[in-house]
Each structure stands twice: as structure tokens, then as C-alpha cells.
């Protein structure tokens, strides 16, 4: 065919050029819907929100086309490796890098002395350095960083760096950290031990609460530390251009915080640094703060003028850690004869590892959300985080609230049994009410807890089964709640928590710029769905540009389950403004008021007479002709929620999600082996934007909780992590993971984007106690620590039958409660 014979395509208005199919969408079957209350700016009803369907980035993910941080290769690049401490606690007397530097192919080596700046993700605990200056605090603490022409040479160079240590006694447990005869990890003249943070809070009349109780239950619990183990190892590529600008491609959930801290540590204006977050291969909280390797790569890229890549080995990922804190609890609950809670006193001791990380916040979180699930009229909380010579602990999915939920729900079943109450009905009776305020000043808005309990227990016929199954079979229920974003930012400021720019193209495409990080949770699809819903286009028409500090407005990051609520609301704000402009010019054409203009199916129409309509492309062009370029900004700042007390900044959230899990287990009474047969989880997500994604988040949360309940451990011997690899650190495989049934409950949150809340973290929390309660139902004995191993099962059965007392009792430190300094 000759060129002239080709069919001609008009490049002018092309109003009917919109023949692309709308993304196939199906109704999800497992959504307990409330009749949608359409917001005033969405009178035409939902056409995208609530549909199930593939994620926007699914197709590039399944073809291997997406470039994760370690997939980036640049011309003339160097490979970096970090030398890490072999000592748990030691002074560094001397570092000799001369032999390493002499190795052919080695380009540069830096040590702590080259970057003597202290930093930390929380402004309250800047106790980290890129590399140790004079003290190493855990096996794996970075000491030096080598860059070489290839990875192997960099590795060989590490072996040539000579470090002379003066070993110090290592502090390896909470008990040791409370002692006064061991060296302090971080010198603190106000203390004689290794306590990092203490919290003492009291709300309501706790003494009177316990005095009025008919029964008081006191138990001790231990929640084992766990790690995130994302399959993607942390990676960064740093490039320092001839224009003196630094670009970092980092596997990070928080590009904005890396941007801030890189500027501070490198002493560069933030305007000269660009942080790009490529797709992240799993985070779960493990990539939410700047890491030594990221800052070292940046420093060395600037020093050498060549791009530097550092990818952690799996062993190093275990050292980078920031995983779930091991926590010991003392839990005292007063109840009336009918189970009504009169007071709770919760004490927690957190093993923080070697540095602060998010630990101050974690300490508060072990107490802050106790009151958000069930009504607690009087509440006392004492929290204490200690430093130990282990990799630093930080936030993992459920941040600090997962551990106490194990204790609380375990004890609640015990209370129900002692009082002869049905454990499900009991929980429903004491559940918090929607639109209430907790005793510690947290504002609860939408709350579907009772619906979740009903859905999960009815689906599993829990009431017929609990306590009635044959010995060796059990069913367990637990419930929980979680944040939809921390109400306050990490560093104090009055700016929005999230911003978005929405640009409408003449061809009908819409681009959103958002500072979020896509770590698999589906933020990209969520943004596309919210914008598509607002403008009546298909999600496939929306292009999402995320996680780039040069291009995208700040979003604080993918942590604290904040993205749907906060970035979603910011995107909706921006898209609503674009809608308003398009609606006004379309209304002029239709000769009606702008309120009468609807958007759906790539068309813009008169709501009073849907025949009167135009394509979205026509409407966009009409608007651009009328107003100029259609690009609108939006932002989200949470309402002021913090109460007036020190520490009130941790806990408030614009909304809380609710979950209830039912686990069904079989326990081999001979071997103690536990088989989880099924987990059913009902989750109040506010409004489900995409059922496929919400189910995926629920299933992933259930799975991750399963691992923590049954197998994940954080053991040390002689100062060393015993199992820093994915074979010995057991995570559930497909053979360990039971069928999971996700039930989505909708409550239509007034402040959430189209009513949505979170699903990323909340569903993990009830899983662990649900399994614990199911095991207790199966073996008629309670286990007070995680993981619930066959060994503990056998010992607990022995103890319960009074044969031999082999189960070591869980204890908390002998000090009754940390004393304020």
C-alpha cells in the first residue's frame, strides 16, 4: 500500500476518536454494601469506584518491563559495598583502608569520619550516622563503604579493610538493657541504663475503675520480633551530574523523607537533590526511612563523579531491619460481671535494637490504639523502649499496635470464658460506637466493627463451633482497628500531608502527579480510580506519575496506611477542581447551571437530559479554550485531632478501619503441629474503591500475620542474628498458607475519598490473636507468646493437665513499671 492510500486520520477535534474499550469491570461478590450515599459533587453516581479489576500497573509487572531500583544501570557506574561490624558492641580503635584502596578497580572508600553527621527519621532521636564514627552497636552496623568498577572487586576490597575493635559488653535483652552495670549504647547522663523512651499516660479514673470491677484479670505476654522480608532487597542508584545535581533512585516508601535527610546529611540544598522512587518490590514498613547505604551511595557519587549503585545482600537486609519490636506486656483489665470493661492498665517493654528509628512512635503505638476497638472508660499506659545491641527495630505493618492486640484479644477470650459469655457477642457488646471519642481523646468516626464480627462469625458458623469441636480442633476470633494515616506529620509543620496535580490533556488523557510510592499496595490504581470517577473517564485514561521529588508534589509516603485517605483526597481535590472548570464550560454550551453537568463513560452530559451530551475530549477542549491549560492542584491536610497532652500526637487519625478475623485450626495432639485450615477476615474499608486490590491487601495481611503467629522468630546468639537468610527465617510458603476468605464491609466514611478508608495494615492485626484463640480452643490451654510453635503447644497442654510444668512462664521485668526521670 502506498502512502497516499492509507486511511487519513483527522488530528483536529476528533470527538469520536474515543473508541478504546472501557476497562472491563466486574462487581465483587464479597462486598457487604451499604446503599451508596453519593457525595454532592458526584450526583450521577459511581461508575468506577467499587468495581473489581486489574491494577493499572499489572500488565507491565507481568512482563518484567518495570524497572525496580536495582534494575537501573547507568554508563560508567560503580558498585558499592558496605563493610559491617562483626562485633555486637565495640569501640573502633582504628580503621585502615590503605590495602583496600590499593586494590586495582577500587575507586574510593569512605568511613564514618567522612560524613560526621547524626540523623534519624524522627527529629526526636537523631542517633544514627551513615557509618560508625567510633562505636559499633550491632553486628551489621556499617563501618565503611567501598566503590569499585565491579561488584566482586568491591567485595574483595571489604576483606582488605582492617578494623581494630575494643569489644564492649553487649546488651542483648530487655532485662539487660534495664541493668545499670552495662555500658550505654547511646551516652545519656540522665540515665544509668539503656532505656531509650518512657511513656506514662493516664486517662479517666483508673483507680476507681479497678475498684468498681467485679473481676480483675492480669496476664503477661510476649510478642516476638519479626522482620518484613520484602522479596526485593534494598537498592539505590545515585548519580551526581556535571550540573552538580544529585539524583537518587531508591527502593523507598518515603521519597520525601529521603530527600530531606539526604540534603541535611550531605549538606546540599534540597533543590539540588532529586529523589525518585521506582516501583518498590515490597515494603511493609521496612523501607520507610533513609538508610545508610542510600546516603553512602549519594556521598560517593558526589565524591567520585560517577554513578554509584548499592544493593544490599539478603543478609544485609536482615541487618537494615527496622522490623517489628519484640514486646513484653503486662495487661491488667477490670471488668464487671457482665464483662463491661471498667479499666485497663497496660505496660509494655520494647526491645528497640541499636537505634531510635521510629521507636518513639512505636512506643506510643503499643498503647495508643488500645481504646479504639472496645470501650475503655479508664486507661493507664506505661511504655518503655530500650536500646539493645541488635539491628534497629522500627515499623512493620500494624506499627506497634499488632503486639498489644495479641495480648488484648487473647485476654478478652479468657475473660469471656471466665464470665461464661459468648466471645463474639461479648466483643460486639463492648465495641466502640461510631462517632464517639475514646478516653484518650481519639475521635472515632465510621466504625463497622460489629458488622465485621457478624460477617466473619456467621460465615464460619463460629458460635456453633467454638468450645464444641473435638479436642485438637479449634476456632478463634479476634478483632482490631487501625489508622488511616497518622494525623500528624513526623516533623512538625502546618503544610498539607499530601499534594496532587491533575492535568487534563486535549486528547482526553488525564495525568496525575503525586508524591506517593507504589510498593505493590495499589496506590497507583487507587489514584487513577479516584480521578477517573471524578472526571467520568476510564482508569486506563489516567497516567500516574509518582514518587519523584522534582515532578510530584510532596506526599509524606507509603506508611501508616495513609495513602488512600490522604493522597486519595488530595487527588480528588485536584480532580474536582478540573471537573469544575470542565463542568462550567460544558454548562455554558448546554445552557444549564454547572451543577447539572454529569461525568461518566467518557462523556459529559446534562443530568436533566442525558441526551444532551458531548465526549470528554470535546468537553476538555472546550474547557481549555475557555480557561487555558487545565491543570489543577489539590492537597489534603487532616483535621486537627490531637488532644492537649504530651504524646497526644501519636494515635489520632482522620479515620480508623476495623477488622475481625476467624481462624480455624487443627492441632496434632501428639506432635503439637498446628495446621491453619482457613482464615476468614471481614474488614471495614469505608468504601471499597477496587475490590481486587482490597481483597489482595486483606489476603496479604492475613498471610503476613500467619507467619508471625506460627513461625517467624528473631533469635540471637553471642551477639549475632542467628538466621539472617530466607531459608532459616521462616516465612509461610504456599503449602503453609491456608485458603483465605476476605469479606469487605463498607461504612462510607464521611471524610475518606468517596468514603474509603485503609486496607493495607489493619487486616494483619486480628490474625495473630485469632490463631492464638483458635489454638486455645483446640488444646484447652493458652499460650502467651508468639510464635505459637509445636513445642509450646505440647508444653501448654502438659501444664494445663498438670503433668509436668514444662512451659516457661512469660514474665515481664521485675521493675513494676518504668519510673519517670
Amino acid at each position, binding site marked *: 500500500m502506498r502512502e497516499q492510500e492509507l486511511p487519513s486520520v483527522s488530528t483536529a477535534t476528533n470527538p469520536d476518536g474515543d473508541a478504546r474499550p472501557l476497562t472491563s469491570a466486574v462487581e465483587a461478590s464479597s462486598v457487604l454494601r451499604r446503599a451508596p450515599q453519593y457525595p454532592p459533587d458526584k450526583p450521577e453516581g459511581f461508575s468506577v469506584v467499587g468495581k473489581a479489576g*486489574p*491494577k493499572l*500497573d*499489572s*500488565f507491565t*509487572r*507481568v*512482563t*518484567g*518491563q*518495570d*524497572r*525496580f531500583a*536495582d*534494575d537501573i*544501570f547507568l554508563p560508567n557506574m560503580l558498585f558499592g559495598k558496605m563493610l559491617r561490624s562483626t562485633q555486637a558492641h565495640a569501640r573502633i580503635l582504628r580503621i585502615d583502608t590503605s590495602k583496600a584502596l590499593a586494590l586495582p578497580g577500587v575507586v574510593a572508600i569512605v568511613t564514618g569520619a567522612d560524613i560526621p553527621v547524626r540523623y534519624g527519621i524522627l527529629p526526636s532521636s537523631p542517633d544514627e550516622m551513615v557509618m560508625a564514627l567510633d562505636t559499633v552497636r550491632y553486628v551489621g552496623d556499617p563501618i565503611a563503604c567501598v566503590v569499585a568498577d*565491579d561488584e*566482586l*572487586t568491591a567485595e*574483595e576490597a571489604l576483606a*582488605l579493610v582492617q578494623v581494630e575493635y575494643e569489644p564492649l559488653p553487649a546488651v542483648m535483652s530487655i532485662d539487660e538493657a534495664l541493668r545499670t552495670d552495662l555500658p550505654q549504647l547511646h551516652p545519656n547522663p540522665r540515665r544509668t541504663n539503656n532505656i531509650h523512651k518512657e511513656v506514662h499516660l493516664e486517662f479517666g479514673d483508673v483507680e476507681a475503675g479497678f475498684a468498681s470491677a467485679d473481676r480483675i484479670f492480669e496476664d503477661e505476654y510476649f510478642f516476638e520480633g519479626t522482620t*518484613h*522480608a*520484602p*522479596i*526485593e*532487597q534494598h537498592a539505590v542508584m545515585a548519580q551526581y551530574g556535571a550540573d552538580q545535581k544529585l539524583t537518587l533512585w531508591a527502593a523507598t516508601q518515603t521519597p520525601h523523607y529521603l530527600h530531606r535527610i539526604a540534603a541535611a546529611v550531605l549538606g546540599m540544598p534540597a533543590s539540588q537533590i532529586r529523589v525518585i522512587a521506582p*516501583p*518498590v*518490590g*515490597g*515494603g*511493609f514498613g521496612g523501607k520507610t526511612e533513609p538508610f545508610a547505604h542510600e546516603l553512602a551511595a549519594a556521598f560517593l557519587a558526589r565524591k567520585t563523579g560517577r554513578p554509584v549503585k548499592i544493593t544490599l*545482600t*539478603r543478609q544485609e537486609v536482615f541487618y537494615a531491619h527496622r522490623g517489628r519490636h519484640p514486646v513484653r506486656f503486662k495487661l491488667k483489665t477490670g471488668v464487671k460481671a457482665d464483662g463491661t470493661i471498667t479499666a485497663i492498665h497496660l505496660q509494655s517493654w520494647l526491645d528497640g535494637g541499636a537505634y531510635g528509628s521510629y521507636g518513639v512512635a512505636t512506643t506510643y503505638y503499643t498503647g495508643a490504639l488500645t481504646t479504639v476497638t472496645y470501650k475503655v472508660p479508664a486507661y493507664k499506659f506505661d511504655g518503655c523502649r530500650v536500646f539493645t545491641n541488635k539491628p534497629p527495630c522500627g515499623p512493620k505493618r500494624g506499627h506497634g499496635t499488632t503486639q498489644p492486640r495479641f495480648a488484648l484479644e487473647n485476654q478478652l477470650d479468657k475473660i469471656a470464658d471466665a464470665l461464661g459469655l459468648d466471645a463474639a457477642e461479648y466483643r460486639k457488646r463492648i465495641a466502640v460506637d461510631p462517632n464517639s471519642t475514646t478516653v484518650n481523646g481519639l475521635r472515632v468516626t465510621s466504625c463497622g466493627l460489629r458488622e465485621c464480627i457478624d460477617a466473619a462469625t456467621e460465615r464460619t458458623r463460629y458460635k456453633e463451633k467454638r468450645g464444641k469441636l473435638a479436642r485438637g480442633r479449634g476456632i478463634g476470633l479476634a478483632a482490631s482497628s487501625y489508622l488511616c494515616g497518622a494525623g500528624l506529620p513526623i516533623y512538625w509543620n502546618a503544610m498539607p500531608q499530601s499534594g496532587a496535580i491533575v492535568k487534563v490533556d486535549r486528547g482526553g488523557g488525564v495525568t496525575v502527579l503525586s508524591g506517593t510510592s507504589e*510498593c*505493590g*499496595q*495499589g496506590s497507583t490504581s487507587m489514584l487513577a480510580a479516584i480521578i477517573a470517577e471524578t472526571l467520568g473517564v476510564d482508569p486506563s485514561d489516567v497516567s500516574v506519575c509518582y514518587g519523584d521529588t522534582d515532578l510530584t508534589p510532596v506526599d509524606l509516603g507509603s506508611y501508616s496506611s495513609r495513602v488512600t485517605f490522604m493522597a486519595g483526597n488530595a487527588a480528588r481535590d485536584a480532580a474536582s477542581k478540573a471537573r469544575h472548570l470542565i463542568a462550567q464550560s460544558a454548562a455554558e454550551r448546554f445552557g444549564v447551571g454547572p451543577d447539572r453537568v454529569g461525568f461518566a463513560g467518557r462523556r459529559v452530559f446534562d443530568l436533566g437530559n442525558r441526551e444532551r451530551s458531548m465526549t470528554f475530549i470535546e468537553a476538555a477542549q472546550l474547557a481549555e479554550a475557555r480557561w487555558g491549560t487545565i491543570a489543577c492542584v489539590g492537597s489534603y491536610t487532616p483535621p486537627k485531632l490531637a488532644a492537649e497532652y504530651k504524646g497526644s500526637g501519636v494515635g489520632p487519625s482522620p479515620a480508623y478501619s476495623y477488622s475481625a478475623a476467624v481462624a480455624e485450626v487443627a492441632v496434632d495432639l501428639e506432635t503439637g503441629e498446628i495446621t491453619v485450615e482457613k482464615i476468614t477476615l471481614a474488614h471495614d474499608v469505608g468504601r471499597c474503591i477496587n475490590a*481486587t*486490590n482490597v*481483597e*489482595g491487601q486483606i*489476603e*496479604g*495481611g*492475613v*498471610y*503476613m500475620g*500467619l507467619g508471625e503467629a506460627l513461625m517467624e522468630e528473631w533469635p540471637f546468639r553471642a551477639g549475632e542474628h542467628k538466621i539472617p*537468610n*530466607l*531459608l532459616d527465617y521462616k*516465612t509461610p*510458603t*504456599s*503449602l503453609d*498458607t491456608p*485458603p*483465605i476468605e476476605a469479606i469487605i464491609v463498607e461504612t462510607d466514611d464521611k471524610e475518606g475519598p468517596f468514603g474509603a478508608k485503609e486496607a493495607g495494615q489493619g487486616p494483619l492485626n486480628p490474625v495473630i490473636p485469632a490463631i492464638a484463640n483458635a489454638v486455645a480452643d483446640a488444646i484447652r490451654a493458652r499460650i502467651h507468646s508468639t510464635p505459637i510453635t509445636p513445642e509450646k503447644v505440647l508444653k501448654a497442654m502438659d501444664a494445663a493437665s498438670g503433668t509436668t510444668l514444662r512451659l516457661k512462664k512469660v514474665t515481664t521485668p521485675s521493675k513494676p513499671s518504668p519510673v519517670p526521670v
Partner: protein
Amino acid sequence: MTVAPEKILLRLHVNGSAVQCAAHPNKTLLEVLREDLNLTGTKHGCEMGHCGACTVLVDDEPVLSCLALAIEAQEHEIRTVEGLADGPKLHPVQQAFAECGAAQCGYCTPGFLMTAAALVERPGVPTNAVIRDAISGNLCRCTGYEKIIEAIALAARRMEEAATHA
């Protein structure tokens, strides 16, 4: 101190093409695919054979490319995630993974896809138990495996239907 051996010429068959590259003989297949052939679709999560992220097909059998030397793979047919689709037409496992939401972060996905492709390309429709067993060497931290199993079953059914109609 070890001295890196001289590079040698590797002749490989990858995704239906004969390719050559000079690489050190101690390089793993994973390293050669990613670093020398720029096929970064194949991922790594441990480089110790624990996680399955680096799974590729060697003569249609799943192999952990982090434990295989490239030099050993020279006489064999290697398939990576980049070679699964038939031009613009996705392989049934790719299509099903995308539709079902079986890829969340997508990092372990290429490894799962290769394991799954080897499974579904065999005759017959595998049961869920067979699927669970087949993918038990691939770790996923996002999905809880639920949608991965659903996707593989869907792909197998579709392939069986297509084979019946053909």
C-alpha cells in the same frame, strides 16, 4: 587475594534467540541475564536459592538462575519473563496474573510466572493442591498466594479450553 578470571565468550539461547556475550566464567546465569544481556525482568531476592525470585526455564524446567552458572546453560534453551509473551499477546499465565491481581508489588512475579508456565504448559489442568506444591519454592510476601493460585488455575483452564478447541 583472588584474581578475577578472564572473560570468556558465552553462547546462549535465550527466548528463542542465539546471543553471545563476554563474561567471567564464574558468573551465575542470573548475573549474565541481568547485567550482560540487560534482561532485568528476572529478579533476585537472596542469591542463595531460597526465594525463587530468579526462576527461569531451562529446557522448559524451572531453574534457580542464582544457583546456575551461565557457562553451564550454554547448550540449553533458556526462557525468561521477557520471552513468555508471544509478541503483544501475553502468555495465559501473564494474562491471568494481571487480571486476578496476582501481582502486587510484582517483584516475585517473574519467578512465579516461570514456575507457573512450566506447570500449565504440561497437559491437563492441575488441581489447587498441585499448584500449591509447584509454587512452594517461590516466596511471595504480598499476596498470601490466594490470587496466584487462582490465576494459575485460570490460566490452566483457559489453555485446556484452547487445546480442546484447537
